[in-house]
């Protein structure tokens, strides 16, 4: 197992390099690439500033040299400074990442805790009215775009009912609140984005769980369990659930990069100061170093997620564990 993991880690390095290289190239060649930002797109940049920036980021060198230098700084966790405000990129990320992890982590937790029972119920009551209602709910959840749900919730809970703040992470006056008050304040700000992400995530995962469960229930070993005379709840909750949870472990690992990608839309809608919104803003402003940093983190999370998925899969399934 240990050799397997280290092999996988080593194999991840070239993949990571490949992804970042491609991104670097695309960014550099795309209209509105880093040099364009310096001139056409931003009239406010004076020639002297531009000169300085070009030097700093080696923008006058050939592209592969630029890339190598970028990688050289990357291994020291130096993502450079933002084009926009000249702040170190790493500082921005350090500020945003925990907030994204908090929101996504809570949402993932909520989704799993709801999706598993919903999926099981749907499968066990296959074709009953419970299953039908859940199916409708799932399809609605699937078909409505996240940003639309987000806007709807903002209108209902934020404007009509006025229960919850619609944007941001904390109130302006949060610093003057008590410790408990601040916590409450953050919780209120989290409520809407959490609700929206959980709702859309729930649709997919509960469906997945239902279908997985339906598959397992048809297996011969479920029939054996019933033939033994086990009570039905044991057949479902031990024999069937244990098997249908295994693929879920993979999903959990693979959804790690969603931290960023899903965040791009709803963090922007909710003006939530997370990594996704940082990425969105960076793209809009052609903030090259920030874009490269978020893409690299995204690629890293994808690979890490894959590895975690495989390892936990092997751990959960004895047929693979014993290989």
């Amino acid at each position, binding site marked *: 197992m240990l050799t397997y993991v280290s092999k996988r880690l080593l194999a991840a390095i070239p993949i990571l390099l490949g992804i970042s290289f491609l991104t670097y190239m695309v960014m550099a060649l795309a209209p509105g690439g880093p040099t364009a930002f310096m001139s056409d797109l931003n009239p406010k940049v004076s020639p002297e500033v531009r000169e300085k920036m070009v030097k700093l980021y080696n923008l006058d060198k050939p592209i592969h040299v630029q890339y190598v230098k970028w990688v050289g700084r990357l291994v020291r966790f130096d993502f450079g400074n933002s084009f926009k405000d000249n702040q170190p990129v790493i500082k921005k990320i350090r500020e945003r990442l925990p907030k994204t992890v908090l929101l996504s982590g809570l949402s993932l937790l909520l989704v799993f805790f709801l999706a598993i029972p919903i999926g099981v119920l749907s499968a066990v009551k296959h074709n009953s009215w419970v299953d039908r209602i859940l199916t409708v709910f799932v399809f609605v959840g699937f078909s409505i775009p996240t940003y639309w749900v987000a806007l709807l919730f903002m209108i209902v809970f934020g404007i009509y009912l006025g229960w919850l703040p619609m944007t941001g992470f904390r109130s302006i006056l949060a610093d003057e609140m008590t410790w408990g008050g601040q916590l409450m304040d953050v919780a209120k700000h989290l409520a809407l984005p959490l609700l929206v992400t959980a709702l859309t995530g729930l649709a997919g995962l509960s469906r997945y769980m239902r279908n997985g469960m339906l598959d397992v229930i048809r297996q011969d*070993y479920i*029939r054996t369990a019933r*033939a*033994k005379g086990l009570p039905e709840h044991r057949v479902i909750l*031990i024999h069937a659930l244990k098997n249908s949870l295994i693929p879920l472990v993979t999903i959990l690992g693979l959804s790690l990069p969603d931290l960023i990608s899903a965040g791009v839309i709803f963090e922007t809608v909710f003006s939530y100061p997370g990594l996704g919104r940082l990425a969105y803003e960076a793209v809009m402003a052609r903030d090259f170093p920030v874009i490269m940093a978020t893409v690299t983190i995204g690629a890293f999370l994808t690979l890490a997620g894959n590895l975690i998925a495989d390892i936990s899969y092997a751990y959960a399934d*004895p047929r693979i564990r014993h290989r």
Partner: protein
Amino acid sequence: MAPLLSIKDLTVDYRHEDRWLPAVKNVFLDVSEGETVAIVGESGCGKSTLALTPLGLLPQDGTCRTTGQVFLNDKNLFNLKEEERRLLRGRRIAMVFQDPFSSLNPVLTINYQLQEAIILKEGKPNHQTAMDLLKQVHLSDAERILESYPHQISGGQRQRVLIAMALVHHPALLIADEPTTALDVTIQDEILQLLKELKTKLGMAMIFITHNMGIVKNISDRMAVMYAGHIVELGKTADVLAAPKHPYTQALLRSLPKLTGSLGTIPVMEGQPPEPSAMPAGCPFHPRCDRTFERCEKEDPFERDSDGRRVQCHLF
């Protein structure tokens, strides 16, 4: 004495889209205490469906319906509540399935799956009981097998474990649905001997499904021949094999590859059994029958009894 199991006019239909198609049709079958009844017939003739009925393991999701009666001793199983039926499963009627490779839960150890059955009987797990059970099915190395997951032991070992599991409660009736089909030939024989031995030792009755006439001859007291959901012939195994009456039974026995005789002339039965969706009118066997006459196309034959032998054919 009342038979242990008595199936009366049982019909089982499966729903295919909006039609109900019969898999078992108007079946009567009694099984006495301690006797072995073999059920033979081509694939799809309804053997497994018939076998699952006494246990109440047919699909419960509305895609399957039953009519008729099934009595265990004097209790009509179809009148029992689900919980009462569950309490008969494993305890009074146990089952061994065809495919030992898929019949054990892959993520639970053998010990766990065996203890589950033991808990139902003794109220708590018991290592010694598990060891004794494995010894009873001639599994040496029982400690290792208990610790294993199903994929870590062979098919034959898995089937022995499944048999051990079925015997926890000393059931009165064991239903074995092609328990050797998925195994190597040499192991088939061992499993067969084991089942015979245990049956005698524990005084169980057994319903044994197979399409191997050699096994039928070896293991059963009586045999039932199924065709398209019907039992077309039923009688003492020795009698039926020596003098088959129904044209289908005759054809089935003729189609057996004989080791004596020239290799080129192995008779094979013509045609296919009818699809449940395209049952012929009259006798379901008449399109393939070599002794068919006018009446066969119009009337479904009734079962006729004579000397404990039952044949469902207009010829008798």
